[in-house]
């Protein structure tokens, strides 16, 4: 039973082993991409038998429940799209394409283990397993100094965050004598030490999630990293770490603390305003998306601040929104740019009049922008609706105000991008995207756009799914 429950991570592990073995003998890009995406699809299918067994405790470190499986599905989908994007992105490069998929699969495995962890030790292992391959992925375009720089930046700051996290863990262990989520803060003693520990843990996680004021690395890294790596960083790593944070806050007694509550509210408030404010004047689409992701994580933090079962639903829905739209937006950037035939096409001027020669990509990006802005008929509206619902329901009026002001500011830059897409064509000649690799990616992206609209009009299936996927509290 336990084996079945963790079938998906096992399949991903097997794929990693297979890929490393394969890369020793063939460096065919097509085979590597095919192998890794097949593995990810199989892992996705592996969630189906696993859903029968949940909830189940797998060793003291992991608990597989509906919540975990839902986020596993999100992560696997995002990883799959990233792999498809990578295939299109690296096709034009002559050397070293295979290792990217290994790194991607390793990080995916880390993410999968994060969403089911019920113990601080497994939480830490998961975070490192996500972060360490990401250093490599971010710096993967090593001939581009910007990519190298952003990789180094990410590594150093991520290391600092991990140090904070470890220190917090140690303090919590000292205070409560256990690393299991449900035991931390159970006995009343050592509350000062415990709070300090949780605070440091939150700081460490906030670094990784790029929540303001720990967001400084985000735009640089997003801008410098190769398209598929930015996509992965913005989606998989965020959703996995956030899911772990949510599980910690929902199951650990220490989360009931009022002081911690205020801290989370403050983080959410600052993130929403700072993210949107800084995005206003950006002329680089990747930086813009980076800042906007800060704001979106602020919206999601609202749900954590609120707490309760409705909050879990809200986070689930919002993350589905965030994943789909971020994949789409970063995906378009990734397809449009190709680093080895020039610089990354992430400047807004590269997108001027994209509708003229790449209507599918332009409409996809426009749909994603509108969805990020939270306008009805797209899935983004449903997400924003839930964030507002949770905030009003818990009477968090400060966050309601920040949400409204934030989205009003957000409109400015999202609409700006949208209008530029449809504007007059003034940009330089773009490379034609007729290679089969790009065509697969474009197809996947337009599928995402269709999904965003379909779920925006009829979100009930997804909401039901999220409602079923509750967090199990081990006895």
């Amino acid at each position, binding site marked *: 039973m336990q084996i079945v429950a963790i079938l998906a991570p096992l399949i991903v592990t097997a794929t990693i*082993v297979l890929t*490393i*073995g394969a*890369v*020793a*003998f063939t*460096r065919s890009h097509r085979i590597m991409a095919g192998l890794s995406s097949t593995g990810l699809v199989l892992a996705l299918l592996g969630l189906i038998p696993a859903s029968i067994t949940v909830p189940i405790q797998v060793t003291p470190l992991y608990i597989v429940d509906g919540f975990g499986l839902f986020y596993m599905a999100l992560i696997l989908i995002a990883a799959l799209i990233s792999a498809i994007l990578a295939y299109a992105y690296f096709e034009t490069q*002559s*050397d*070293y394409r295979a290792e990217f998929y290994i790194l991607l699969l390793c990080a995916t495995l880390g993410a999968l283990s994060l969403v089911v962890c019920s113990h601080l030790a497994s939480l830490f292992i998961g975070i490192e397993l996500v972060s360490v391959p990401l250093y490599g992925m971010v710096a993967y375009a090593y001939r581009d100094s910007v990519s190298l720089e952003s990789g180094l930046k990410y590594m150093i700051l991520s290391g600092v965050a991990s140090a904070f996290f470890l220190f917090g863990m140690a303090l919590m262990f000292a205070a409560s004598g256990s690393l299991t989520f449900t035991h931390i803060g159970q006995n009343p003693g050592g509350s000062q030490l415990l709070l300090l520990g949780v605070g440091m843990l939150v700081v460490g996680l906030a670094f990784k999630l790029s929540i303001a004021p720990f967001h400084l690395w985000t735009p640089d890294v997003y801008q410098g990293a190769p398209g598929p790596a930015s996509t992965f960083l913005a989606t998989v790593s965020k959703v996995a770490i956030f899911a772990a944070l949510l599980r910690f806050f929902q199951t650990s007694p220490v989360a009931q603390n009022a002081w911690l509550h205020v801290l989370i509210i403050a983080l959410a408030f600052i993130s929403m305003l700072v993210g949107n404010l800084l995005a206003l004047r950006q002329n680089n689409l990747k930086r813009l998306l980076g800042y906007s992701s800060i704001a979106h994580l602020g919206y999601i933090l609202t749900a954590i601040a609120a707490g309760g079962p409705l909050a879990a639903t809200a986070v689930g829905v919002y993350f589905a929104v965030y994943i789909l739209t971020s994949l789409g937006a970063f995906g378009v950037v990734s397809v449009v740019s190709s680093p080895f035939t020039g610089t990354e096409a992430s400047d807004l001027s590269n997108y001027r009049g994209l509708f003229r020669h790449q209507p599918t990509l332009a409409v996809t990006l426009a749909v994603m922008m509108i969805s990020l802005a939270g306008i009805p008929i797209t899935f983004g509206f449903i997400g924003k609706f839930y964030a507002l619902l949770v905030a009003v329901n818990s009477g968090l009026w400060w966050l309601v105000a920040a949400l409204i002001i934030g989205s009003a500011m957000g409109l400015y830059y999202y609409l700006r991008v949208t209008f530029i897409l449809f504007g007059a064509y003034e940009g330089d000649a773009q490379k034609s995207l007729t290679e089969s690799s790009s065509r697969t990616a474009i197809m996947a992206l337009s599928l995402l756009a269709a999904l965003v609209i379909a779920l925006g009009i009829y979100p009930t299936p997804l909401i039901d799914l999220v409602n079923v996927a509750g967090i199990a509290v081990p006895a």
Partner: protein
Amino acid sequence: MNDAAQQSVTVWPLVLFFASAMGLVGLMIGLSSILGGRHNEKLGNEPFESGIRPTGSAHRRFSVQFYLVAIIFVLFDLEVVFVFSYAIAAPALGWAGYGAFIFFLGMITLGLIYEWRIGALNWAPKAPRQMRLEAIEINRARNLRGESTIDAGANHSPTLDQS
């Protein structure tokens, strides 16, 4: 005898050892600085090369990929720790533990095969042709200006000649 007294009994040789070690080192450095001769001539810091004035810097880059070898060594050496710990518990773990451990060793072997195949174990790998040509050009330019030369392939990953 109370706890504190017992601790002081076991600790004092350590303290003595530490103090005497520090004292010895301090004595050696202090005495030589007091007794040693001192001069401040201009050429005093030049390395002695049979009267020939040295050219270039001693801080040269070596093409030997020590760092890579070192990292690979550390990695595989660390795995040995797991072998030791398994060896202690082997009887208790039984056949299941044996199987798991064989799997673990298989993974390590796979890693070794991967490193071997991508050329990470080559002692001094050849750089790609373009880079070698480029290095020759740069060296020629630097020789003309009297600067130190560089080695091709020292500055990048050893895996460049695959693919």
